[in-house]
């Protein structure tokens, strides 16, 4: 791993709106530069995407963008990020995705010219490779449309580039359901890391070439999936919290390859990436209840530079279209944080303290987001000599913190959850330092029909 030192060592400095290395955008947003912005995400209502419906698809994105920016303007927004996370058809036919970026960018530009409201588009193509099973991560022809969309989409105005890539997911899907922490760690710290190196080298190069911003890649298919499963009580929250920590070594590879942030919202590795690398991050919590329920509604905003709603369909509520309503909710949350920032460190620290304390002892996944725990675990995540060792050390450090917290009586967990802790620790401790030893240990245990080692350079 490239990073050997924390950029932020003082938990008090790991705070919303402020990142050591802020990102400046074309229309003048200064992400992490002293204030928080809203990041609105949205998607289509129930409908199919085909040649007949394309005009309607475009009309939806137009309506969403206009409605959201209009509302942001009325609320004196300091600026907005609009995330365009594509659906299958928009990546498979990149022209469709590019057209949507154009539509959105024109509207962004006109609000900027007419009213001075700055907004930017985060372009997040979906990872097509998983349509082939087992996936051909490096040799698939599906990489072509994906990169076409990246390149033409950024030229059309998609200035921030992200993806939620799925390398390693072939192994993690089952591993999550079995709560097999070793297999999860293998999928993230071996397969995920290698695939991220492959993908992000390319993405960062493209972005450099066109002067765009390589933002980041969150482990949605891993950590967010684990959270949703834990929320349904399908797997222990303790396990989901560990997945989040382990994800860090996978997602940080984007930065190692040149990504500068803002990191994407949905897997919550953000605070770790911010502490270790200093990039600004996007986070989501209570105001993403439209997309999934959350055990970290407040605490997740403690270190956010962008505050996101994850995703909402363009459907009608009593007040109007849902993206407009969510734009408003985000803006009010963000206003509160920005008021505190403006009044100075004492105020923002107090607000952060309240955000943290209101959640921290209610769920293991909240504990993982406490800024002081983030710093402590981050130190463990950068000490070793391999991604594997780092992931294991971070995970064990979290178990340490969890047990301290339980012992202190500040947090309680049901027996069903507690019984997993010693098992998980034991399994983690059995993981060797070296990647090759770990691979040797794991390969015989994994279903060979599920993934192709050579597609990860193994």
């Amino acid at each position: 791993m490239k990073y050997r030192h924390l950029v932020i060592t003082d938990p008090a400095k790991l705070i919303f709106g402020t990142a050591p290395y802020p990102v400046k955008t074309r229309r003048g947003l200064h992400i992490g530069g002293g204030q928080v912005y809203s990041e609105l995400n949205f998607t289509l209502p129930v409908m199919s995407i085909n040649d007949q419906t394309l005009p309607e698809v475009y009309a939806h994105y137009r309506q969403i963008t206009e409605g959201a920016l209009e509302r942001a303007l009325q609320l004196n927004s300091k600026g907005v990020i609009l995330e365009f996370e594509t659906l299958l058809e928009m990546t498979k036919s990149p022209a469709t995705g590019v057209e949507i970026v154009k539509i959105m960018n024109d509207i962004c530009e006109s609000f900027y010219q007419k009213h001075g409201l700055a907004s930017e588009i985060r372009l997040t193509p979906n990872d097509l490779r998983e349509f082939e099973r087992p996936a051909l991560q490096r040799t698939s022809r599906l990489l072509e449309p994906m990169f076409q969309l990246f390149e033409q989409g950024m030229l059309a105005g998609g200035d921030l580039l992200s993806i939620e890539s799925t390398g390693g997911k072939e192994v993690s899907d089952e591993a999550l359901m079995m709560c097999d922490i070793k297999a999860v760690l293998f999928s993230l710290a071996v397969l995920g890391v290698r695939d991220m190196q492959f993908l992000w080298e390319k993405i960062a190069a493209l972005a450099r070439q066109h002067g765009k911003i390589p933002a980041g890649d969150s482990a949605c298919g891993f950590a967010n999936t684990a959270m949703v499963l834990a929320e349904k009580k399908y797997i222990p929250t303790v396990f989901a919290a560990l997945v989040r920590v382990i994800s860090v070594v996978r997602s940080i590879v984007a930065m190692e390859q040149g990504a500068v942030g803002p990191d994407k919202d949905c897997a919550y590795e953000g605070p770790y990436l911010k502490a270790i690398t200093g990039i600004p991050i996007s986070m989501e919590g209570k105001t993403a209840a439209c997309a999934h329920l959350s055990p970290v509604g407040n605490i997740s905003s403690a270190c956010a530079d962008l505050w996101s709603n994850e995703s909402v369909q363009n459907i009608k509520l009593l007040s109007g279209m849902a993206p407009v309503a969510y734009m408003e909710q985000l803006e009010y949350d963000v206003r509160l944080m920005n008021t505190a920032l403006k009044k100075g460190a004492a105020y923002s620290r107090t607000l952060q303290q309240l955000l943290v304390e209101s959640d921290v002892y209610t769920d293991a996944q909240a504990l993982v987001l406490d800024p002081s725990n983030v710093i402590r675990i981050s130190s463990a995540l950068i000490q070793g000599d391999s991604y594997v060792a780092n992931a294991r050390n971070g995970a064990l450090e979290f178990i340490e913190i969890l047990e301290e917290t339980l012992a202190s009586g500040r947090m309680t967990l049901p027996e069903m959850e507690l019984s997993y802790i010693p098992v998980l620790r034991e399994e983690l401790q059995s993981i060797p330092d070296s990647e090759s030893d770990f691979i040797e240990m794991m390969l015989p245990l994994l279903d060979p029909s599920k993934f192709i080692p050579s597609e990860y350079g193994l």
Partner: protein
Amino acid sequence: MNYILSKLLEAVEYGKVDQGSPYPPNLKGMDGAHELTQKALDAGIMPQEILETALIPAMGNVGRKFSENKIFVPQMLMSARAMGASMAHLKPFFASGKIKARGTFVIGTVKGDLHDIGKNLVAMMVEGAGWTIVDLGVDADAESFLEALSNNPGAVVGLSALLTTTMINMGEIVEKIKENAPGTVILVGGAPVSTDFCRKIGADFYSPDPRGAVEFLKQLAS
């Protein structure tokens, strides 16, 4: 209940695959589903009885505990594996007609959609209820469902979709099935699906969770 069968029920309920398997710790070294099924057959117990008196009730208990949030998925998966170990012994009797499955359940995630975690859980629980599963995987189109139906006449179909832009494909698939294999019962599910939507596309039943599907199928089979 016969002693061997009650042991087998316990082995499946707690996910003991075979003697050597380390899980669950408190059954360490004891016979698992594998050995107990062999013993039951050796003792002359009818395969159908093994299925009906031990395996299905065991999985019923597991399903109940799961839907009451008393166990996590891994425990349920271990039970499913134990049941699988037992079924391996019983397979020949299905072929020979000595055991009748409850029916066949053809399940798949619809075209354009890759989300299969939910679908897999449903498949597993329906299998646990004594149905034969034909899993079409993800990104499954109408043709593959029709083909599966022509190979398994009378099968019940389950469709899963997680995207607002793929659930609409369910409608198309339902239409084609009802046209080409009239009378086929179709279940639908997945996070964005609802009873209203189910009704609208002409499917027969929606359930927000695997348990509802199992209950519905139980009534269907009886």
